[in-house]
């Protein structure tokens, strides 16, 4: 009888522990996608999505993001871009010149230094520049965008970057961290005609403190050697990791 009573007690304790454990596990399964903290509004939307369709594809995520049209971004200022443009106002020349509607033409008379390397050949000048009034840029719906608001133009395609830029995850804030928010426009860093940033020479590395008997020449040789060593080491590591992954794959297939 004693043994029986002890068994009952143990069983009841086990059940008492099992209930919250299973509940916790099930809640974990539901919240598996929320790896980072997400604002409450989005959480609610996500729960609705999970009831309607359990497969959360990448496309659905994009749609959810794009529906978030009303962004409460904090107000900001940008330094004027128009003041940096040498040849502004553009209509000084373009009012008199004829508008050439040919695509893919090479600029010969003026603006020869501009090479369009943006869009993979799908863009030409009037994709972004207003055809009727060259003092402005244009949106896809042919609305005028000032040069000082170029983020509205860039944000039509690069909307994720634009959201990050509004809130501080992309781009550069200048002058202060509290008070009037001044952030740099897209074109301060990215050349709109060829936006890819080119590699630049770095500033010199830190000094190596190797004791009182080293020469300056040793430092230069050492850094070069280290560079060679690191590429060799990297190559060896890649080879070894390939071997390792093949081995693991063969083990899995067994």
């Amino acid at each position, binding site marked *: 009888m004693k043994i029986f009573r002890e068994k009952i007690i143990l069983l009841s304790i086990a059940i008492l522990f099992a209930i919250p454990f299973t509940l916790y596990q099930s809640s974990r399964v539901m919240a598996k996608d929320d790896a980072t903290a997400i604002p409450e509004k989005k959480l609610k939307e996500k729960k609705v999505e999970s009831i309607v369709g359990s497969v959360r594809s990448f496309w659905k995520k994009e749609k959810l993001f794009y529906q978030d049209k009303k962004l409460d971004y904090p107000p900001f200022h940008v330094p004027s871009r128009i003041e940096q443009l040498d040849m502004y106002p553009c209509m000084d020349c373009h009012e008199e010149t004829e508008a050439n509607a040919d695509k893919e033409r090479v600029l010969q008379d003026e603006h020869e230094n501009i090479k369009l390397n943006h869009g993979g050949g799908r863009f030409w000048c009037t994709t972004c520049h207003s055809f009727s009034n060259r003092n402005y840029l244009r949106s896809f719906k042919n609305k005028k965008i000032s040069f000082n608001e170029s983020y509205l133009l860039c944000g039509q395609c690069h909307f994720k970057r634009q959201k990050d830029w509004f809130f501080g*995850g992309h781009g*550069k804030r*200048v*002058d*202060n*961290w509290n008070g009037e928010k001044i952030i740099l426009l897209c074109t301060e860093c990215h050349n709109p005609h060829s936006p890819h940033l080119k590699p*630049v020479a770095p*500033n010199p590395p830190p000094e*190596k403190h190797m004791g009182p008997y080293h020469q300056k020449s040793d430092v230069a040789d050492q850094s070069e050697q280290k*560079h060679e060593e690191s590429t060799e080491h990297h190559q060896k590591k890649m080879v070894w990791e390939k071997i390792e992954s093949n081995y693991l794959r063969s083990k899995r297939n067994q």
Partner: protein
Amino acid sequence: MSDQKTSSQENKKQQKVSRRSFIKRFGVAGATLAAAGGTSTAVLAAEAAEGSSFGDAFSEYFQSHYRKMTKEEITEALARLERQAKREWEVDIKIEAYPPIDNVVFGYALNISKCKGYRKCVDACKVVNNNSRDPEIEYIRVLEMDTDTKNLEDSNHYYNPKTVPTAGKYYMPVACHHCERAPCVRACPTQATWKEPDGIVVVDYNWCIGCHYCVIACPYWARRYNWKKPSIPKKEINTKTHYLSNRPRYRGVMEKCTFCLQRTRKGQLPACHEACPTGARVFGNLLDPKSEIRYILENKTIFRLKEELNTEPKFWYYTD
């Protein structure tokens, strides 16, 4: 009668012995005091000979801990330090001690997708903070890591290719992370380093004894030591300084990144933030829910270095 005589003689002997011993003790004590006084005056005289007047050396020797000084004492100390700096560096340096801003705890984030390893932040920091040029002290260390690893031991911070970024590498600048549970603060035997209310871990260069306990404690290798008297070209000395951050230092004291507290407590951005050409750095107030740093912590993929050590650093790394 004879008993009285002998007793009186004994008393006299005792008195003689006690007086003699008393004079002996007094003489020894006096000699030690004189020696001690002599050594301290010798120290002060040596300091005076180096470049400060005797009065300044005296008050420096007896200066109290920064956190215990009253406002008047601090202003006196600042005036004295400015005089000493003028004698040593021959430049008019302004040292101030403005307090932290209320309801502010600083946080910093760095986008490793954007950092290309230019090292512009390193040089800007050196100039603004009056760091020694020879021997070279740089607070920020930019680690070049392979893209497939997060192992800091495989990193290389002496990289010097012709152009940067190198393919297959990513760059991670590391400086003091100003941990909430800073091991260096707990390790310091003299309490020369502490965490200010705005989250910045500071060093009092007049209180540090250079024992290197903080170097051993810091898991991020953020501490730098002045093995020699720092040397800065006269024209490059930044004259707007703060007692706790970028005033000219001495031989034998520890220093480290201070989140440019002489700038950030006035609302400006740190030097590394201003210098970064890619805009990879984000600085702000962690207590303000609308700040950029909070947006990054809530919406981006973030990590901190050596999180398993529970130091709670206030420097996050994030990717696009």
